[in-house]
């Protein structure tokens, strides 16, 4: 039985990581094709950092992911608090309304956002789609995901805690910041990471809401598959991003583990 359990886990992990391993291996392939192994080489990493178009797109992607994740987290958290404080019927209505964009196919969201932006361009008679509209649409589709990941934490919250803090003399803002916020933090962090990744890999909405001269990585990767085939530079870039994310996760986990240890020691002392 134990063997079976292990085997099951192994199969799942292989399915998850085999594509990434293949990608990483081929990023070191001297040859341009996946059909042959031309020997180990760092050529594509060199090419990658020389490719202005890809570097600019990487910059756009990261900037948009960061700004949209932070903004959407702030708006989404506020929304979760507000929704929780509502009466039953309006709460249900608002919850369902914010679920629709999650269920909606991306292409519908993308095209309708584009039409909306164009309507406003027509209304004020100047301006064009570009970085700003791309950012706005990323914030828009991220908000419901943040709300949905913070809301359970808000529900778990004991309303008496907030009142207790005020009874003990804390002002409303202080009692939110020092008492409520730390309890919501796990949900908020999950929501923010979720928003960040969603923004990183969105193609459809980005394609329709961006304007001339502004593209992100997913647009470039998707377009390069169309005519000339995926360039191995993209493998190199993906490997690079994978390693950076892995390192970040590793650092965060180690810090968490250390703090956990410290807290335990404190508890034992007191």
């Amino acid at each position, binding site marked *: 039985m134990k063997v079976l359990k292990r085997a099951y886990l192994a199969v799942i992990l292989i399915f998850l990581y085999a594509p990434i391993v293949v990608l990483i291996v081929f990023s070191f392939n001297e040859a341009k094709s996946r059909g042959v192994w031309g020997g180990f080489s760092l050529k594509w990493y060199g090419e990658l950092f020389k490719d202005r178009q890809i570097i600019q797109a990487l910059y756009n992607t990261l900037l948009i992911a960061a700004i949209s994740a932070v903004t959407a987290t702030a708006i989404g958290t506020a929304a979760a608090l507000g929704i929780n404080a509502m009466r039953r019927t309006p709460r249900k209505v608002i919850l369902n309304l914010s679920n629709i964009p999650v269920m909606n196919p991306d292409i519908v969201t993308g095209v309708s956002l584009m039409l909306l932006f164009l309507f406003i361009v027509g209304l004020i008679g100047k301006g064009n789609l570009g970085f700003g509209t791309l950012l706005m649409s990323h914030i828009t589709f991220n908000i419901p995901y943040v709300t949905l990941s913070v809301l359970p934490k808000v529900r778990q919250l004991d309303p008496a805690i907030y009142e207790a803090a005020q009874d003990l003399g804390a002002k409303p803002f202080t009692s939110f910041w020092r008492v409520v916020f730390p309890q919501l933090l796990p949900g908020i962090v999950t929501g923010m990471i979720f928003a960040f990744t969603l923004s990183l890999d969105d193609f459809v909405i980005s394609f329709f809401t961006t304007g001339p001269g502004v593209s992100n990585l997913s647009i470039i990767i998707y377009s390069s598959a169309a005519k000339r*085939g995926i360039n191995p530079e993209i493998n190199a870039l993906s490997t690079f991003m994978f390693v950076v994310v892995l390192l970040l996760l590793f650092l965060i986990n180690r810090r968490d583990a250390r703090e956990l240890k410290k807290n335990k020691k404190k508890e034992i002392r007191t």
Partner: protein
Amino acid sequence: MKKIFFVLLCVFVAITSSFLSACGKNKEELIFYNWQDYIDPDVVDMFTEETGISVIIEPFDTNESMYIKVKNTGGYDVILPSDYMVQRMVNDGLLEKLDMSKIPNYSHIDDNFKNLYFDPANEYFVPYMWGTVGILYDSTRVYEPIDSWEALWDERYEGEIFMYNSVRDAMTAPLKMLGYSVNTLDAGELDEAAALLIEQKPLVKAYLGEPVKDKMIGGEGIMAVMYSGDAQFCQFENENLVYTIPKEGSNIFVDGLVIPKTAPNKENAMKFIDFLCRPEIAALNSEYLGYSTANRSALELIDPELMENPIFWATDEEIARCEFFEDLGDFRDDFDRVWSEVLIGN
């Protein structure tokens, strides 16, 4: 209530408009809407160095998605669509008539690519690269050199043949073999072609799209129906592979430069198009991309060894036997129907 709604609308518009990018006329800029990696980056740098105009390349993935963007938004100065899409854009009035006096290098363009069906008077379109659909085969494993679509029906190659997984490209082989047009609107001809494909099915290893390139390079099959640009990539990685345009004729396509009516920098756009028509620049692009250039004068500047390859160059007769894809109108559904019968039938 109405007032509140109006105020909210105003706030919404104000917020959104503050995010819109300014679209002033910038003298020193040019936005080029192109396929990803479909121009030599050095050529772009040379243009910037010479004219001081910086070129921003924005990629698209299909003609269709490019069309939606161009139809709805402005801001692109030069676009590089394929033949059939130019027809649609001309019909919709999206394209600016070119001022040929500002594009003197147009004279270098091959006559085969002038006066095409979608631009009979050469008013909108400047040809850039062209290609054909043909057979790529492993010269070490065939019994004799291949020059006809019939090889795809040769039983000696059972299980070693790759077909292209898209309707029109797959139908090209049987239609041309039967001596029909690839743009046929005759249900009888179409059924004959489909019957041939069904007959061929036991010989076919797989119907594939892009991955066929890696399979051919890795030697997993003997022959494949392929676009000439892809074939060049395969040859570069595996020198046993040979590309041929079958003697019955085939499909030919041409991609070219157009200027949309909404272009903010039309003057720069004309300069850029003229620059790309210079023979030495066209030769650089052709060698970088592995596509045939539509620039006749450039052919003399390309490495003569490459010129023996039908990927880079075809005789006028060979080109004449090839046909452009034209829009089939409602008959497209019939093509789709017989193609799905081929895929699911026995």
